[in-house]
């Protein structure tokens, strides 16, 4: 298999994957909300007050956040990332654990809120990391790297990644200084 010139996913690939994931996550939220609204309409007139809107927004955040955390921490790929053949790994090449995934999803929110300015470092960083990657010490690399040797050779963390930790969730390591 031919690898791309850089083993880390760039802005376009990540944008497509994020768009697909956003669509799927919102579809889940809308479907759940629609079912709840249907059930509520059977009971009586349903008008959301301020508290209700806050709860609905919180539910949206929780569902979307859970979507990302669940996929990152289990397979390392959301459906959108799977479609684009990219995956999240720690800076050391290991799989992402739940705590790191939570940190990353918070960082993702922070990167999106200021008009996606948090993604600007992807253009400048040698490992194409965004704000959320810096915060969680993760990288987004192409998932075509299937073997441990490939991962280590491409990500360049030979001396730091024991073979047995690849494919496992690990605790937060000390992030490597960016280039």
């Amino acid at each position, binding site marked *: 298999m031919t690898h791309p010139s850089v083993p880390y996913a760039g802005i376009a690939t990540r944008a497509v994957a994020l768009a697909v994931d956003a669509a799927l996550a919102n579809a889940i939220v809308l479907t759940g909300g629609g079912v709840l609204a249907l059930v509520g309409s059977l009971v009586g007139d349903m008008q959301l007050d301020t508290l209700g809107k806050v709860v609905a927004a919180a539910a949206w955040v929780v569902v979307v956040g859970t979507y990302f955390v669940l996929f990152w921490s289990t397979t390392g790929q959301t459906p959108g990332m799977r479609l684009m053949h990219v995956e999240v790994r720690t800076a050391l090449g290991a799989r992402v654990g739940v705590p790191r995934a939570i940190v990353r999803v918070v960082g993702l929110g922070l990167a999106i809120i200021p008009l996606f300015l948090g993604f600007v470092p992807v253009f*400048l960083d040698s490992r194409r990391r965004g704000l959320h990657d810096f915060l969680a010490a993760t990288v987004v690399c192409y998932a075509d790297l299937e073997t441990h040797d490939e991962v280590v050779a491409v990500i360049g963390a030979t001396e730091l990644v024991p073979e047995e930790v690849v494919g496992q969730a690990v605790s937060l390591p000390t992030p490597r200084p960016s280039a």
Partner: protein
Amino acid sequence: MAIDARDVMLGLASRGALAGLTVARAGMVPVRLAARAPVVGPRLRRTGEGLAREGELLREEARAAAERLVGSMIAAPEVERAIDLLLAGPLMDAAGRSIAEHRVVERVATQMVLTVDVDRLIDAVLDHEVTERAIEHVLASPSLERFVAQVVESRFAQDVTEQLLASPELERIVAYIASSPHVVEAINKHTQSLAQEMVSDVRSRTQKADDTAERVVRSWLRRPRPEPS
């Protein structure tokens, strides 16, 4: 029963002929005995052989003359006119009706099928090189091409096609083919491969876009891309 004079005459002629034959045979008895005699016998046999040769020559000449006669009769315009009259006349119609009435063709065909090994006959005909050459000749013939083109363009072909398309049998066949596991599997495979091709294409395009976008932004900031650490 009344006696017919012509029958009596025929009976008398028959009796007379038989009597003549008997007398002739009786007359030949002394000749046969003489032929076996020691002195006269060889001369008689030679004489008989000479007579036999003359008779044989005469028979051959008579046969040739008969053949010439028959040939001249067949070639005669009278015979031609006679045959023409025969074919144009009511006799042929009557013969045709009779053949149909008595099912002559069916009976002959049945007897042929029963007595002849039809499969072997068909195989022999099909395997014969003359048949093969004839088929090749027909297939290579431009006349056949024109004929097929005329058939295809004809109203008959259109009608047949319309009848076929409107027939419930065709619907049943199409439904059967459409629900065939092989067809469904082939369509699924084709669809999957098409989707995979599309996704792969999108993936390669986005990877190129990654590099392009990064190169453009870095060129604005005059920062070349460092090697990954």
